[in-house]
């Protein structure tokens, strides 16, 4: 029997002068933890926790190499000497665990705006970036020299700050990418035209950086394997670039990536709709062409998945970013054989990727500790006296409260009225390609089991039960229930809620093949789009109607929008915007086009509502009135998304 041996994952690897203890890399990603261009204690604690959790190598987020580069507020300005103390705190926190840490250094080039700098952005050619829509200034030779000098200067700062290596970002969002890509490089001088010319800047930077670091630090280059934009670089170009990089004999490893940050970001930080390991073809092709160690990335969620990528020869190191955001001890748990205790990432992108676009610091829907390591959140404070805690509702809020309370040593019982845990998450996970969301509850249940939390199914909580059990504390997490908007008459039986569709509790089996359905999206997240896909797959003719400017407005934040559009198109789903439901008249649904005041109508077989829900708060009110020590968390306070439930549950449980 070939039971799973980790033959490669835990073996060391040499990257120039640096040795990693295993093959798991916490690869570069934005955190928004910087303040005023400087690294913070939040950075140090965040990276330190991943080092403590067993990561083999940590590569920080990018540090800007030049004052012309400031595309978003919380960027580390590596070109200022005053970043060095922050670097030291960061590298010390990681080195304490004998883990190497590399700095990624970068100039974002034309993929930026002048909003912060008040200076024109620099790029190889005056080609406006699709996201920032700003025409950049093409750099002249003196400016190119200045860019190269900037990389050298920041490298000096990094070396002084204690980093073990430098990674040059040449993909995603980078002036080097801009030069490499025929889509953005229209130059006719020695830096434009054939690939050897377009790669000149990269090779100059490699030489300049190597000159600074000598043999003391490692040097890596991150190459894009396919920009996924027309006219951009593809895998053949990437292989050639890797060969050129290897030929310099000055580079110790090659990292890989896919997509362009300002055009195809949804393919860089793929959500759960895209298969794990989807970008493996890139390290695989590069590794075949060059002998340098290659890092593979792209939805690595599981240690065995990583092991297989290594054992099948596709890469030498595996980037596990979101996996280690969700569980800082991803590597240590797998190493100790406790793989089943890993809190698996959902690839939901809600609190990590999603918060970057909102200019907020990085967190995790599952891990309240992420980003708050420095505050000691998520650690147990064992209480002097264990309390009896009763929790009503085993959705994400109730379960998280149970976990946090049990961690502090309290005895916890959760009562769930359904036969399964999970609340709305269970329903939300039962739609096309969203099953991984269910891992949220699976992970919570596993943690409850380890902590000895008792869960009773099938019976909810009534005040009588509380009187019998006489708990010291009660936490109410009873969630929310569907609500009818004013315009939908209660007796219109063809008007149903998304939850009815998902739970299969619709009269007469609900929408069937061949029937027409209008889905009303007033929430702007996965609710409407998921059900629309589900029904379209079932053979219904589906139209999604929203009062917003776009269906599933917040899907953009989690990078689910592009996929939704592609799938909706393929499935023939119609999307109609700026329409406000005004009432239902028999079979007719009346819609107001609010920008013009024009009235429209539809007469579908079914109207499915994705509209704000209403909190289930009676239990809380009853218990409070009866004088119990009671708190409430999650949707029964106010219906919101899962992260709010988890955060509130954690806060309430940990506070006991």
């Amino acid at each position, binding site marked *: 029997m070939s039971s799973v041996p980790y*033959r*490669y994952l835990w*073996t*060391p690897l040499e990257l120039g002068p640096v*040795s990693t203890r295993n093959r798991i890399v916490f690869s570069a990603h934005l955190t928004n933890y910087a303040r005023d261009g400087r690294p913070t204690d939040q950075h140090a604690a965040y990276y330190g926790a991943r080092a403590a959790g067993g990561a083999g190598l940590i590569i920080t987020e990018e540090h800007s190499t030049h004052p012309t580069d400031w595309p978003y507020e919380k960027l580390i300005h590596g070109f200022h000497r005053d970043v060095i103390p922050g670097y030291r705190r960061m590298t010390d926190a990681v080195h304490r665990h004998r883990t190497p840490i590399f700095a990624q250094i970068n100039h974002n080039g034309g993929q930026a705006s002048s909003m912060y700098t008040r200076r024109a952005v620099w790029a190889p050619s005056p080609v406006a970036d699709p996201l920032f829509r700003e025409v950049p200034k093409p750099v002249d030779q003196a400016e190119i020299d200045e860019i190269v000098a900037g990389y050298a200067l920041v490298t000096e700062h990094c070396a002084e700050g204690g980093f073990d290596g430098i990674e040059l970002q040449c993909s995603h969002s980078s002036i080097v990418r801009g030069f490499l890509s025929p889509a953005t490089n229209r130059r006719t001088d020695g830096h434009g035209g054939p690939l050897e010319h377009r790669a000149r800047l990269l090779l100059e930077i490699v030489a300049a950086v190597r000159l600074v670091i000598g043999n003391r630090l490692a040097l890596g280059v991150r190459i894009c394997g*396919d*920009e*996924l*934009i*027309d006219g*951009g670089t593809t*895998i053949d170009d990437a292989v050639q670039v890797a060969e050129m990089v290897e030929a310099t004999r000055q580079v110790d490893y090659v990292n890989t990536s896919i997509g362009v940050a300002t055009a*195809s970001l949804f*393919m860089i930080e*793929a959500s759960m*709709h*895209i*298969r794990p390991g*989807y*970008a*493996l*073809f890139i390290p*695989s*092709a590069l*590794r*075949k062409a060059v002998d340098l160690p290659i890092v593979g990335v792209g939805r690595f969620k599981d240690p065995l998945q990583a092991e297989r990528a*290594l*054992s*099948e*020869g*596709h890469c*030498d190191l595996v980037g596990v970013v979101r996996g280690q955001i969700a569980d800082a001890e991803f590597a240590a748990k797998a190493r100790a054989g406790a793989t089943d205790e890993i809190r698996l990432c959902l690839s939901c992108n809600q609190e990590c990727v999603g918060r970057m676009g909102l200019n907020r610091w990085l967190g995790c829907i599952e891990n309240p500790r992420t980003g708050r390591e420095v505050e000691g959140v998520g650690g147990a404070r064992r209480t002097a006296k264990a309390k009896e805690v009763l929790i009503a509702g085993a959705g994400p809020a109730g379960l998280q409260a149970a976990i946090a309370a049990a961690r502090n040593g309290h005895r916890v019982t959760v009562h769930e009225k359904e036969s399964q845990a999970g609340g709305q998450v269970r329903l939300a996970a039962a739609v096309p390609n969203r099953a991984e969301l269910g891992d949220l509850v699976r992970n919570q249940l596993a943690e409850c089991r380890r902590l000895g939390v008792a869960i009773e199914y099938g019976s909810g909580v009534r005040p009588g039960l509380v009187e019998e059990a006489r708990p010291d504390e009660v936490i109410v997490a009873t969630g929310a229930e569907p609500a009818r908007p004013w315009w939908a008459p209660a007796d219109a039986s063809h008007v149903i809620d998304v939850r009815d569709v998902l739970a299969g509790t619709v009269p007469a089996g609900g929408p069937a093949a061949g029937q027409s359905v209008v889905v009303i999206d007033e929430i702007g997240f996965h609710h409407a789009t998921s059900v629309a896909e589900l029904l379209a*797959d*079932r053979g219904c003719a589906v139209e999604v109607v929203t009062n917003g400017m776009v269906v599933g407005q917040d899907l953009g934040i989690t990078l689910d929008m592009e*996929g939704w559009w*592609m*799938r909706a*198109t*393929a*499935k023939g789903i119609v999307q109609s915007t700026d329409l406000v439901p005004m009432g239902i008249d028999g079979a007719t649904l009346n819609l107001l086009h609010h920008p013009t005041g024009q009235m429209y109508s539809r007469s579908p077989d079914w109207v499915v509502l994705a509209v704000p829900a209403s909190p289930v708060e009676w239990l809380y009110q009853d218990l409070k009135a009866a004088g119990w020590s009671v708190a409430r968390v999650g949707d029964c306070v106010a219906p919101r998304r899962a992260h709010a439930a988890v955060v509130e549950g954690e806060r309430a449980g940990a506070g006991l």
Partner: protein
Amino acid sequence: MIAACLKWVDRRPEWDPATSQVITDARTSGLSAPDAAALELALRCGDAWSQPVAAVTAGPPAAEVVLREAIAAGAARAVRVDLPATSPSNVVASALAGVLADLDATSTWCGDHSLDRGSGSVPAYLAAELARPQALGLVEVSIGGTDEVSGLRRLDRGRRERLAVAGGGVLSVEGSAARLRRAPLAAAMAARSAPIEVRVAPAGDPEPATLAPGALRLYRPRARVWPAPDGDTALDRIADLTATGMTKGRPETVILEPDSAAERILAALAAWGYDVP
């Protein structure tokens, strides 16, 4: 005479990244499971055919541990050819073949492959040197009349082959083929000081010529190509990567009652060319 060719090898080697060497420890070294099975089968043949069994090894003095184990279990003779532990397979085979010829061994038992080099080529080399038939990688053995053995050998894709060897031959076995008997207490004690014949390895290289051993490095899996997404346009490649069903490879999804589902599944299996009863 029946022979068992045994190898002294570390059963739990480790890699030392600092020196790029495999670290072995005499304390965890001894008979591998396949070698133990080979010894047991040699002893069973000896019992069945009333012939003495000789245990033979090629290795340094420390390797005598495995010979003492063989003596304790019932081997009548024990011979060690003095060779370094890292000798190449053909050198080992040729040294062993010399001893086996001297002993006039008819049936020779070996483990199917050793842990250290792991090539499994010594038994076949022996067969070639001794000009005898070979039955290698046996997982099950039955012992017939004198010098007649048949056994089951693992082929690829789960098939098995039953082979017979008459008049003696070279047989190699997997560890699961037999479990080495426990040596009686008195024999185990006596074996601690039993005599072992030591021979000097034949001088010079055997034919065919050997190769100088190369440097060891940590195992690095060989590069293998994962197909890149198809498509000339970016959108085609994205569709291929995301499997959004816009181009190809979309699974066929059917919603069916159990009976029709069963029919549909059987039809699909048949259409894909699987023989379904």
